[in-house]
């Protein structure tokens, strides 16, 4: 071994002293001095270090980081000479996996150990495996934005940081499922809570917080985010990330492969959360109508996840096979366990009869006044609504009879004003008949409203969903009472079983600009209106619907970068989507030109002048230099989308990492 010396203490071999710091990059760290030669292998050096430390510990995760070259010495059979290490090298003997705090798409913080030595792409695979998210190639990490100094002075509430640093995954094997969650989460109550945080949607944010959070004011602001992506082909250490740093975990590529609620609860939920925050923070624009649908879905999702209905409810409509139904009924009957009143309720289709005030007009809608309402005796049976002058005349001809099948039902409710109206738009060959039913109280309203909704879908009140529909309506009314009602119903006791609806503020469901535009009591009825179309969805269906609606927004999935096109004198925006590049005017925001990836022949990056050159079919050449982000980010985005488009269902989970790095890397050569 190295370190032979003469009696006088002079070294006679060509050995020299190598100083190695123990621990992470810390100038104060304790150091060891080893005697090595240029021929020493890294493996041997590692062994020596461990011997010198004389501490019993699992060192298997430790490796040497060469600070000046920003490089891990991972090839244990390489010699120091081969690496080119001399005595002046600053080497750190430290763990390869270090804790980082990930800010998840749902804005919660999670501490876990990430690989600091592998390329980020591989580190992401491991992280996603730990979080049980499939398709890690779609996700990546961003640097957290630098906090402004002023804000630090403000007292920020301590937030809970979930901890997964102690969880170790056995390599190779796909995590088995245990108690409805991946086995590695079921070890302790803590990790279990962590899994719930990951797989269940978070409650709506505080509207005040929403207003405080930074929102992009212009297209230029939207480019900021994309300058912070980390590089997939290099490791975290190389990119200057330190242990304990906060990083953002986000879906980077807007091409979600094979989204399956059954196998992907975490992925689905986090994607939903990312979409939700995108909308709430106005990263993506939508219209008022669309916002109401998003709000209704959020409300619905929150309600379901709070009430613990995480599991899919059995299909309500077509779920039971006729035979099963018949046989099980047979069974029930033979055992005599069914109370007869239950049978009665099955045989008779319930009907509603009551005095209601009705207002109708078949002509142009005018401003409504209370005067227009007349008291009528109304009978609602099956899907038909008939009304009479009075109860005595009920057996006779009704004034009007409307079949509600296919009609539009619109709530017109103001709880604080004690106004409970149902607007019905009933189609007929002559056009639509508009009719308003005014109910006396919430209970009556909920019953009639539920009936109308079912009837519009061609179902009667005998339908099994009737009572749940009534409950849902009551719950929503209570939301309005507490949220936007302005204290009008403070004396009322809460309706409905789930208290989560109580105190829910509709402002937490919409982007701040709608908070400014509408009063809460204006907002609630509109959310209520949109909610009725989604009220029957299960949790994962609702999340999927939310994601799909997000995906069908025109501006969905475009990552913006400021670039300067060759030959142009002004900055412009390049939008990168999963199938195309878009040239956008910076000041106006208009699309100037679109190029599709399917027409792309090749693209090249000139790393020296930071220019990307792309050749399309028919000899169209485009070149631009990147301004707001490094051209590496643009290059990786383009290569990443090309990579994602090569995925096929048949290949399954397998990831072609080489291909990815080939498509997105390349700059290593320079």
């Amino acid at each position, binding site marked *: 071994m190295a370190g032979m010396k003469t009696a006088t203490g002079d070294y006679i071999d060509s050995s020299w002293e190598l100083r190695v710091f123990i621990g992470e990059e810390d100038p104060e760290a304790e150091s060891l001095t080893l005697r090595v030669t240029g021929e020493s292998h890294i493996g041997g050096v590692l062994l020596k270090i461990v011997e010198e430390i004389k501490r019993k510990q699992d060192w298997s995760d430790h490796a040497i980081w060469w600070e000046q070259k920003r490089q891990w010495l991972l090839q244990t059979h390489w010699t120091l000479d081969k690496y080119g290490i001399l005595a002046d090298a600053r080497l750190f003997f430290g763990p390869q996996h270090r804790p980082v705090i990930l800010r998840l798409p749902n804005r919660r913080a999670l501490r876990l150990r990430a690989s600091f030595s592998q390329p980020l792409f591989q580190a992401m695979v491991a992280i996603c495996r730990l979080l049980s998210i499939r398709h890690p190639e779609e996700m990546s990490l961003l640097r957290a934005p630098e906090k402004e100094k002023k804000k630090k002075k403000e007292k920020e509430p301590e937030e809970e940081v979930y901890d997964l640093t102690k969880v170790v995954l056995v390599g190779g094997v796909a995590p088995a499922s245990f108690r409805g969650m991946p086995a590695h989460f079921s070890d302790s109550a803590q990790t279990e809570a962590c899994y719930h945080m990951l797989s269940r949607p978070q409650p709506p944010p505080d509207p005040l917080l929403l207003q405080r959070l930074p929102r992009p004011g212009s297209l230029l602001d939207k480019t900021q985010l994309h300058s912070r992506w980390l590089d997939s082909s290099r490791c975290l250490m190389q990119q200057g990330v330190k242990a304990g740093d906060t990083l953002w975990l986000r879906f980077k590529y807007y*091409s*979600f492969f094979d*989204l399956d609620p059954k196998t992907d609860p975490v992925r689905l939920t986090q994607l939903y959360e990312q979409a939700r925050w995108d909308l709430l923070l106005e990263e993506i*624009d*939508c*219209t*008022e*109508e*669309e916002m109401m*649908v998003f709000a209704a879905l959020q409300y619905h999702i929150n309600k379901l996840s709070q009430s613990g209905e995480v599991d899919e409810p059995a299909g309500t409509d077509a779920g039971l096979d*006729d*035979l099963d139904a*018949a*046989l099980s*009924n*047979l*069974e029930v*009957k*033979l055992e*005599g366990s069914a109370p*007869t009143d239950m*049978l009665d309720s*099955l*045989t008779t*289709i319930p009907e509603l009869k009551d005095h209601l005030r009705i207002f109708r007009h078949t002509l*142009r809608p005018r401003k409504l006044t209370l005067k227009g309402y007349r008291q009528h005796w109304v009978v609602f*049976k*099956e899907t038909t609504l008939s009304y009479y002058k009075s109860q005595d005349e*009920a*057996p*006779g*001809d009704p004034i009007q009879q409307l079949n509600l099948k*296919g009609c*539009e039902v619109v709530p017109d409710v103001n709880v604080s004003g004690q106004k409970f109206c149902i607007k019905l738009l009933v*189609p*007929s*060959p*002559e*056009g*639509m008949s508009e009719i308003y039913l005014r109910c006396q109280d919430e209970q009556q309203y909920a019953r009639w409203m539920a009936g109308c909704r079912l009837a519009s879908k061609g179902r009667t009140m005998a339908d099994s969903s009737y009572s749940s529909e009534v409950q849902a309506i009551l719950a929503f009314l209570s939301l309005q009472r507490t949220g936007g009602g302005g204290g009008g119903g403070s004396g009322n006791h809460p309706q409905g079983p789930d208290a989560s609806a109580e105190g829910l503020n509709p402002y937490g469901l919409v982007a701040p*600009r709608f908070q400014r535009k509408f009063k809460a009591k204006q907002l609630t009825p509109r959310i209520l209106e949109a909610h009725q179309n989604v009220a029957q969805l299960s949790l994962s269906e609702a999340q999927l619907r939310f*994601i*799909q*609606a997000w*995906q*069908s*927004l*025109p*501006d969905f999935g475009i990552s913006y970068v400021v670039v300067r096109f060759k030959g142009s004198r002004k900055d412009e925006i390049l939008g990168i989507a999963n*199938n195309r590049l878009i040239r956008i005017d910076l000041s106006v*925001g208009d699309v100037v030109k*679109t190029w599709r990836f*399917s*027409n792309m022949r090749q693209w090249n990056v000139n790393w020296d002048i930071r220019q990307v050159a792309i050749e399309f079919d028919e000899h169209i050449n485009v070149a631009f230099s990147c301004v707001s982000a490094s051209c590496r980010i643009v290059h990786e985005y383009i290569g990443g989308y090309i990579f994602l488009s090569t995925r096929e269902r048949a290949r399954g989970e397998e990831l072609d990492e080489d291909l990815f790095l080939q498509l997105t890397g390349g700059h290593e050569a320079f």
Partner: protein
Amino acid sequence: MEQLSDEEIDHGAEEDSDKEDQDLDKMFGAWLGELDKLTQSLDSDKPTEPIKRSPLRQETNMANFSYRFSIYNLNEALNQGETVDLDALMADLCSIEQELSSIGAGNTKRQITETKATQKLPASRHTSKHGTLKGLSSSSNRITKPSHANYSLDDITAQLEQASLSMDEAAQQSVLEDTKPLVTNQHRRTASAGTVSDAEVRSISNSSRSSITSATSSMDSLDIDKVARPQELDLTHQGQPITEHAISLRCPSKQAKRHIDFTEEQAELTPHSYLDRETSLLLRNIAGKPSHLLTKEEQAAKLKAEKIRVALEKIKEAQVKKLVIRVHMSDDSSKTMMVDERQTVRQVLDNLMDKSHCGYSLDWSLVETISELQMERIFEDHENLVENLLNWTRDSQNKLIFMERIEKYALFKNPQNYLLGKKETAEMADRNKEVLLEECFCGSSVTVPEIEGVLWLKDDGKKSWKKRYFLLRASGIYYVPKGKAKVSRDLVCFLQLDHVNVYYGQDYRNKYKAPTDYCLVLKHPQIQKKSQYIKYLCCDDMRTLHQWVNGIRIAKYGKQLYMNYQEAVKRTESAYDWTSLSSSSIKSGSSSSSIPESQSNHSNQSDSGVSDTQPAGHVRSQSMVSSIFSEAWKRGTQLEESSK
């Protein structure tokens, strides 16, 4: 080749030229008029107890149901010929009939008559909705050629007639004597209108009457005893033709049926149902056991369960409504055909292409024209035809036209012109077209093309048009309000697409003084007359019009549209293979009874199933040909099935 069952009756109509058709229409009109009168008289005749009224309405459906049901069974019995135990069937019928007439209290009798009247109404209402379509109560058509089926058939009809006659007598004694003649009158009219032979008339009216018996009693929810028995009758009908274990099937199916209706009470358990208790216990015990371990009884129980399932399927099948429609061809001729309420436009198109020898092409479409509003729409392949046609009013001049329309699938033939939001048409390599379609329709959500631009909007109630900048989004059509920028947050929603269909306007330059003739209309499918709820838009040129219409179709139907196209391509391709063999072979294949047997749930086949009533000799003469092609046919249909 025109031996496809549903053509039978159509022949009558078609051969007798258009003039006859008009007569028929008139006759229908007259009939409808009378029906209306009848309804009115029924309505005006207020019963003494008001409570009785509401059950009546509800029962109408039930009556209809049983009506179709029993005819279906009878029909099937006829088709199956020898194996039918008609005597047993008759015995059951008679016992029911006796029971019913013995019940004969004034109240129930009166109900019977009422029911009879109302029972006819639903069928006639359907009829009334179709100006040019003639809604015949479908099932009556199905018994058009009973004479070949069985020697004992005549006996049955005779007995049936007796049964119904005695029913009639019972009814005539009832309070509602005035409505009665009308009812019988209609029966005769139906018969003559249908231009069928005497024997057929008899069978039609008989069968409908026999079903009235069952319907009436099953409606009477007050009398449990009566409820159970007619059902028993129905199930015997269906049970016997299917299997030879008529007796064993009777009990379980009866039981099953009862449970569907929920009209029976526990106390009513008969010795048969006691047997069932054992069966059901057995069934529970054997759940999960491999079949070779089962005891005899257990196997029997299993068999029973299977039979119940079959019975339930039959019940479902029998509930299907059918309509006779007239389809206008592009050469001004027209064809009458029967459609099943479950049939999609695709299925009807396939039928039509088969029948009209027009060759197979993607572009064949069913076009709905609403003449009063001067607009038309190509039905989408996945739509339910009957549902759409039921939106027409009774006196409607609307037409259903079978014609080739290139715009139906132009979107998929040249997607680059529709999906890229470009102003000019362009060529594209086929490979890229596929990529584009894949991208647009096969992702986790459908990409709605970004279509925007200035369109003219017609003012409500006026013949003036205003320019507006419209944008299409997945959530609906929006416009940019005056003085605002084109950003999402400021857009105003013009229309959401859930409740409207998109139509092409015809000649609106004349009708509404539109700036151009390239107009599109958005309206609820049920609206048939001028209304403020109809929105009219006018484009500058044809290209813009098609872009908008197709964009709206994508936003509205999404992936379904692409699936329709792929399905259509598949059909035409397979059809092309067929025609290259021999066009006659297909026909013989479809009319030969041997093959489609196994596909009773394939609604396309349900019509040709009736061709079983063809004389056996005829089938035999074709059997040579058909056996040659039956293999190929099977393969073809399997392909179809698997592609579903």
